[in-house]
């Protein structure tokens, strides 16, 4: 059920989405789907040789999780803009919550829009990726 423009105000939270615990097999599947063959996400030995304790999630996988949260809130086809910064690494075993907060509500070219700050965080509240999005609402 998509959110309504009239019911939403600046400062309101979007409906969060929880993903995980993340499994290494998800990184393999995502790498194949995205044609991202970087072994740092799929080969623990390679990751250790590169200075990491294990493989870790592709940034774009986390962006996909956030995108899934945005679509669940606004409905398919209603994400107008979406930007993220890959600030921290997301590790296997972590359970990730995708969150968004409305920062602006306005109308433009006949569309009812809300801007949101979005981020992913771990169970202990550590932020992983952060960004912003613009949603079209009815």
């Amino acid at each position: 059920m998509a959110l309504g423009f009239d019911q939403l105000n600046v400062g309101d939270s979007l409906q969060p989405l929880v993903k995980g615990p993340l499994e290494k097999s998800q990184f393999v599947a995502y790498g194949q789907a995205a044609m991202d063959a970087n072994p740092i996400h799929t080969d623990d030995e390679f990751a250790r040789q590169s200075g990491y304790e294990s493989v870790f999630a592709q940034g774009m996988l986390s962006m996909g999780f956030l995108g899934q949260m945005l679509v669940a809130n606004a409905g398919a086809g209603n994400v107008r803009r979406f930007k993220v910064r890959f600030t921290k690494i997301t590790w296997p075993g972590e359970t990730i919550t995708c969150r968004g907060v409305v920062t602006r509500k306005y109308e433009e070219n006949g569309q009812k829009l809300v801007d949101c700050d979005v981020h992913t965080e771990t169970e202990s509240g550590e932020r992983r990726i952060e960004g912003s999005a613009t949603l079209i609402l009815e």
Partner: protein
Amino acid sequence: MGAAAGDPDLFLALDLNYASLLHAEQEFEWSRPLVAGEKVTITGRVGDMWEKQGKSGTLDFVVLEQIARDANGETVYVARTTLISRRI
């Protein structure tokens, strides 16, 4: 960053240090939803480039921009990928 990096030839021509390559930011702007079965033409370009002195040396920032246009030449989406590479 795989497909997000867009044009492979353009990507290789940048001659970045792949071992230190970091996908720092990603942005998408959609003019309308993509419809199953339609054909879009994607063109890529280097949108911006700059360098910054970091503790471990020079960091190169590159923004790769891809524009997808439909059969009428109208923009469907614009994607921007920001990469950071530590110069060897």
